[in-house]
């Protein structure tokens, strides 16, 4: 607003001044300036004064102004105040800007007019900011800068050798001088390519060949032949298409059907479906059982596996999401309750363990209370907890049905279904049991035999040919008894004498089974006795059954049985019943050895057997003891407590100062009862061993791998030997080995040989953008080293910088 008023005032004053000094218009530079800027505007501005009726004057002045404007001279003379005039108002305001037209945009601008001194001020500030002229760099710094620059350029120059060096280092063999003119043999084909058919006969032949496109170099098939071979006949193609169409249609139908079936929510439907499937499976299984028992067995195994898996998964508990929701619903919904019941029943069924081992007695002999109440000790040797009998036992379903019914009083109508299912189940289980029984029979369970032997021995003779001779595996492992064990196993000469203290020995015996109850211990004793008898019997029987086949089969069975029951024992190793060789003739003349050895042999033979084993065992134990690291006793008696005769250091001290060494590594023969392996180091051989891992290797396995292949001609073919022992550097006699020159570099760098011009060009180009190149190089070098070739390859191509690209390319060529 202030601007507006002031300018308005200025205008009025200007007008008054003009009135005063009519003829002195030349002395009004401001007006001239205004007119100069915009004559039209000036004219417009003067229009506002026409009211005062001074048109002529104005026009005249205008004319003059226009004329003066034509002359082109700019007058920028500020008004000088030479003398008092009308132009200068009493308010000390010039009439500058009079006759100007007001522009709104000007009015809107800020009040402070742009100062012309702004730029000067800026300049001044900048000058002020600037410090004094920098000192020249110190000598060292200047040198450093130079060095840095030199380093960069030099490293770039030297960098081109890196690849060469690497390549030479990795070369399996270097033949110096490196540059060799290889006399290449030009193939005949190429040599004759310049040859042309001249004679008419030749031309004719060539024409024929070319016309039929007869293959000249690869004479297998002509292109047409190839095409015809590859092409399919029309009929075939049609047939194939039809087939494909049909297959596609069928697939879509099937998919649609499956989708529909999937969407069915009816539980009844699903249940029925499930049942039908189960039935189907059972039926199939029965058929399989009839047709192929072996496959059926395998299937059974598979089922068992499935069952185990399901059992492991704990899917059928009442903890799942579904089960919990059902539990909430069960109070109101009968259906849900039923589902819950089913689930629980299934769970129970799954959780019941199948008997691992057939028990000693017949299943039916086991009283029923025992099966339910597992807390009562079992007469059998197996773990009583493990004796959860299979659910398929006849009385069991009934026994379990009662409580189930009690729990579900409302579900009477479901009972039929349940029973039906259970019947099915029981049928299935009966079947399974049947199988199990048969399998057991086939395996010829030793337990059953035991019983038989126990009953009477006369039967066994009849039974024996069918069943194999059970191995005379010794039952007792007299593990730690220092007393030389009584030979109970050597039964060849002696009768079936029971061991002197059966109970004690049995307590020491080793078995895989865990003895848990008193009855178990008793049964163990029985077992031992039975086994003794059994051994005797089998010995007799073994003699009778001399046929090879049976012997072998028996061996297999016995191995199985023994592996199940016994730890690996020394006697088992030694006492394997060997088959007798059936020889067409027997030796007539017995050996007469030298007297000494025969007597000795006789004696050893007479006393052979158990003491040998016991001695060996003792020796082994001794070796084991000797191999154990000894504890260090640092106890000082009398130190810190009363000392004297008859006083022992306190247990606390002993415990504190008896330093136990770390346990020795496991012995090599820990699993071989019949072997003692020496743990002593061969110090003479160890002197030749490498004691520290040689340099480039990081792990000992790497070193061993590098050492394991022999290079000698004894173990390799001639060529392989030559290759394995080829020298790394070969110098040819009579040739001067020149130091490698810069010209060699592009040749040796394999990437460059593809386009040598391309290599040369970017180098020339690299001049202008030098700085950028340097920076780029520093980056790419780091990358190239750390990451490998893939990153820097693109860069090298785009920038024309050779360094990273060179790094990348040779490796590729190597791979080729």
């Amino acid at each position, binding site marked *: 607003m202030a601007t507006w008023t002031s300018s308005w005032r200025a205008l009025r004053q200007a007008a008054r001044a003009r009135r005063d000094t009519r003829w002195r218009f030349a002395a009004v530079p401001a007006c001239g300036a205004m007119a100069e800027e915009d004559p039209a505007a000036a004219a417009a501005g003067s229009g506002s004064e026409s009211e005062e009726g001074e048109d002529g004057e104005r026009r005249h002045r205008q004319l003059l102004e226009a004329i003066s404007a034509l002359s082109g001279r700019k007058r920028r003379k500020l008004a000088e105040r030479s003398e008092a005039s009308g132009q200068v108002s009493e308010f000390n305001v010039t009439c500058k800007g009079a006759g100007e037209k007001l522009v709104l945009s000007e009015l809107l601008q800020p009040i402070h007019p742009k100062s012309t001194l702004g730029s000067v001020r800026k300049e001044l500030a900048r000058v002020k900011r600037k410090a004094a002229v920098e000192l020249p760099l110190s000598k060292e710094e200047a040198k450093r800068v130079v060095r840095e620059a030199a380093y960069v350029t030099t490293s770039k120059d030297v960098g081109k050798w890196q690849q060469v060096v690497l390549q030479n280092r990795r070369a399996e063999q270097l033949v110096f001088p490196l540059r060799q003119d290889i006399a290449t043999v030009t193939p005949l084909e*190429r040599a004759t390519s310049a040859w042309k058919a001249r004679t008419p006969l030749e031309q004719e032949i060539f024409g024929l060949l070319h016309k039929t496109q007869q293959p000249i170099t*690869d004479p297998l098939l002509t292109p047409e032949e190839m095409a015809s071979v590859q092409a399919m006949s029309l009929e075939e193609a049609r047939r194939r298409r039809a087939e494909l169409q049909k297959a596609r249609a069928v697939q879509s139908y099937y998919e649609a059907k499956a989708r529909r079936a999937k969407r069915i929510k009816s539980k009844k439907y699903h249940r029925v479906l499930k049942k039908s499937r189960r039935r189907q499976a059972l039926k199939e299984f029965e058929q399989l059982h009839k047709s192929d028992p072996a496959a059926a067995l395998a299937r059974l195994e598979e089922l068992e596996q499935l069952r185990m898996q399901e059992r492991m998964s704990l899917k059928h508990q009442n903890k799942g999401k579904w089960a919990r929701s059902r539990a909430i619903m069960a109070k109101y919904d009968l259906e849900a309750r039923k589902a819950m019941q089913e689930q629980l029943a299934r769970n129970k069924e799954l959780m019941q363990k199948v008997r691992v081992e057939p028990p000693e007695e017949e299943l039916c002999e086991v009283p029923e209370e025992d099966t339910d109440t597992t807390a009562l000790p079992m007469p059998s040797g197996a773990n009583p907890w493990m004796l959860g009998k299979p659910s398929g036992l006849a009385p069991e379903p009934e026994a379990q049905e009662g409580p189930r019914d009690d729990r579900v009083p409302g579900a009477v109508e479901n009972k039929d279904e349940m029973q039906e299912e259970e019947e099915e189940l029981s049928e299935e289980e009966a079947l399974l049991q049947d199988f199990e029984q048969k399998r057991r029979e086939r395996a010829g369970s030793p337990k059953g035999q035991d019983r038989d032997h126990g009953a009477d021995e006369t039967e066994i003779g009849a039974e024996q040919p069918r069943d194999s001779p059970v191995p005379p595996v010794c039952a007792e492992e007299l593990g730690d008894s220092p007393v030389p064990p009584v030979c109970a196993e050597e039964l060849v000469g002696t009768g079936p004498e029971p061991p002197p203290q059966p109970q004690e020995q049995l307590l020491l015996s080793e078995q895989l089974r865990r003895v848990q109850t008193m009855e178990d211990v008793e049964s163990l004793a029985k077992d031992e006795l039975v086994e003794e008898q059994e051994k005797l019997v089998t010995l007799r029987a073994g003699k009778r059954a001399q046929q090879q086949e049976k012997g072998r089969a028996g061996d297999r069975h016995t191995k199985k049985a023994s592996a199940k029951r016994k730890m690996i024992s020394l006697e088992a190793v030694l006492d394997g019943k060997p088959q007798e060789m059936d020889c067409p003739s027997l030796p*007539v003349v017995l050996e007469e050895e030298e007297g000494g050895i025969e007597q000795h042999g006789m004696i050893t033979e007479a006393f052979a057997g158990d003491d040998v084993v016991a001695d060996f065992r003792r020796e082994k134990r001794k070796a084991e003891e000797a191999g154990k690291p000894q504890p260090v006793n640092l106890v000082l008696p009398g130190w810190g407590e009363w000392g004297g005769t008859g006083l022992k250091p306190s247990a606390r001290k002993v415990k504190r100062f008896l330093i136990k060494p770390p346990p020795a590594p496991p012995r090599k023969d820990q699993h071989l009862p019949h072997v003692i392996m020496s743990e002593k180091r061969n110090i003479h051989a160890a002197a030749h061993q490498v004691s520290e891992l040689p340099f480039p290797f990081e792990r000992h*396995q790497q070193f*061993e*791998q590098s050492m394991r292949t022999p290079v000698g001609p004894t173990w*390799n073919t001639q060529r392989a030997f030559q290759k*394995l022992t080829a020298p790394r550097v070969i110098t040819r006699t009579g040739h001067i080995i020149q130091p490698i020159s810069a010209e060699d570099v592009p040749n040796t760098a394999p990437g460059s040989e593809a386009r040598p011009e391309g290599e040369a060009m970017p180098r020339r180009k690299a001049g202008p953008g030098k700085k950028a190149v340097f920076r780029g190089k520093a980056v790419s070098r780091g990358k190239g080293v750390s990451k490998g070739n893939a990153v820097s390859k693109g860069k090298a191509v785009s920038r024309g910088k050779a360094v990273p690209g060179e790094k990348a390319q040779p490796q590729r060529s190597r791979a080729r």
Partner: protein
Amino acid sequence: MVAMAGGVSGRTDPFPGPAPVPRARVKRFLRGSEEKTPRAVAPRLRWHLKNLGIRENSAAEKAARWEPLLPEEPGFLEVEPGEDSARISQREIADAVDIGSAAKHFELRLEQFGPYRLDYTRNGRFLLLGGLRGHVAALDWAQRRLLSEFNVMETVRDVSWLHCESLLAVAQRRWLHVYDSQGLEIHVVRSFQNLLHLQFLPYHFLLAATSSLGLLHFLDVSVGREVATLSTRSGRAAAMAQDPATALIHLGHANGTVSLWTPNVAEPAVRLLAHRGAVRAIAVHGSGRLMATAGLDRKIRIFDLRTFGVLQEWGVPIGASQLDFSQRRLLAAACGDLLQIYPKVDSGCPPVAPFLQHRVPSPARGLRFCPFQDVLGAGHGMGFSSLLVPGSGEPNLDALEQNPFRSRRQRQEWEVKALLEKIPAELLTPEPALLSRVDTAGLEQKHQERVQRLGFDPTSKPKFRPRRRHRGRAPELRRRQRQHEETRARIRQSLEQKEKNQEEPPKKKRKKEGKTPQKSGNKLGENLQKSANKKGENPPKKGKKLGEKLQKVGEKIPKNQEKREGNAQKIEKKLGKKTPKIGQKNGEKTKIKRKRQKGGPGSKLGGKAPKLGGSPPNRGALERFRK
């Protein structure tokens, strides 16, 4: 190559490059397990390992590529269905095969000198027979050429060829004797007493011997050094065998164990309870994987030497007293007078019946398969029988390794090469791959071992002893002492010179004595042995006697004559002096050669014969055999 393929004919190779070898076949030649080594961090090492792998593979591939070029097929015996191969007699086999093979079946009737032990050279060309009653014969059995034959007039327990057919070792009643192929006694090793069995380890040049005292000796025959004497602590070893793959010595003991020994450790590397009764015989297959043992419990057991588990076992009518594996895994057992050869031992179940069976006139004491031949040699009380066992020998032989057809020159070259490639006895370990492994023992343990090995501590400083300083007239005294020492040394030297001069002439006399056949020969051996043992040190007695004699002679002979003799002796001495430096064995050899030139090789042997009572009776038998 590719360009060339397209060249002349205008055809390109439809299957370019070498034919691919199935990976399974290559794998057979790869060593070490397939397990991956940990990846190397350093790129340089990674590259190195990769390169190594490539080289390994290419070497194995080359070997696999050459494998089908082994052209020979092993022999076999086919029987009619229902017929038992064990009932086929040797005569039938000999009739069926070609003449060359049929000639390999023969019998030597040598009834007088008791059951025979035998040994074949490693190339299967030469046979060595040693009768219990002293008869030793070396022959080129394929050509029916007798190398030598003599009677040692002592019990012969065992015989063995050394590295080649030029040397043989005989374990006699008292000591170990070494003869050359001409029957000339070269060494008597008296520290080896009452030997029972001999085994020669060819790559280590070690002769292993067990004695009735339960000792196990190792003798390095290349330098004549006794490498080790170990006490087995199990009494007399009834059986001995070597594992050709690892060069371990297997001993069978009366307590039913088999122990595996190296000369470097004073206890057996492995002890194995093999039988309930005593072990009577052991045999190890050349691959080093199978060991067969026979015991008093009348069983034969086959062990896997990698796991020490029993692979098979079977009973034999009366226990086997001798066992031997053929190159192709046939097992021969001597059960009394019955020789049984069992079929190839590899399948899981033990053999049902023997593959072949042969009855020798009396119980066999030696049983060996001949390498590279389908021949089994058996020594027994009535001589030696060579039997045909089809399919027992390896048909493809490596002539660079063992060449049955090598000439003398080739043998000599091979000898040099073998000596250069000799494996030191120290490197004999149960697992040969030990050397390629890094030793993880600590520094302290290493030092202890070094001290143990060297017998002293090389790093230990000698105990400080203050020097005794002489004062006063010490320099004068020392000068006198030095003078005194010098004069004494001079006198001693001159005396030695004199003694040496006097030694020479009686030697000649002794050589003349050496001509007398039996006893002197033995004495000579003894003397040689003594000299060998004591490294040129003369027994004092002899020296005295000789000195006395010389003195007497010196009285009679004028001085100038003595001088002349002295000169000659000096020259001789110079020659003689050199020999012991070269090595004990060589030195002795030269001496013996000198003697032989004078006495003649035949004379000694010829001299032996009359004392035995007429010409050796075996001569006749062998003459017959030669015809």
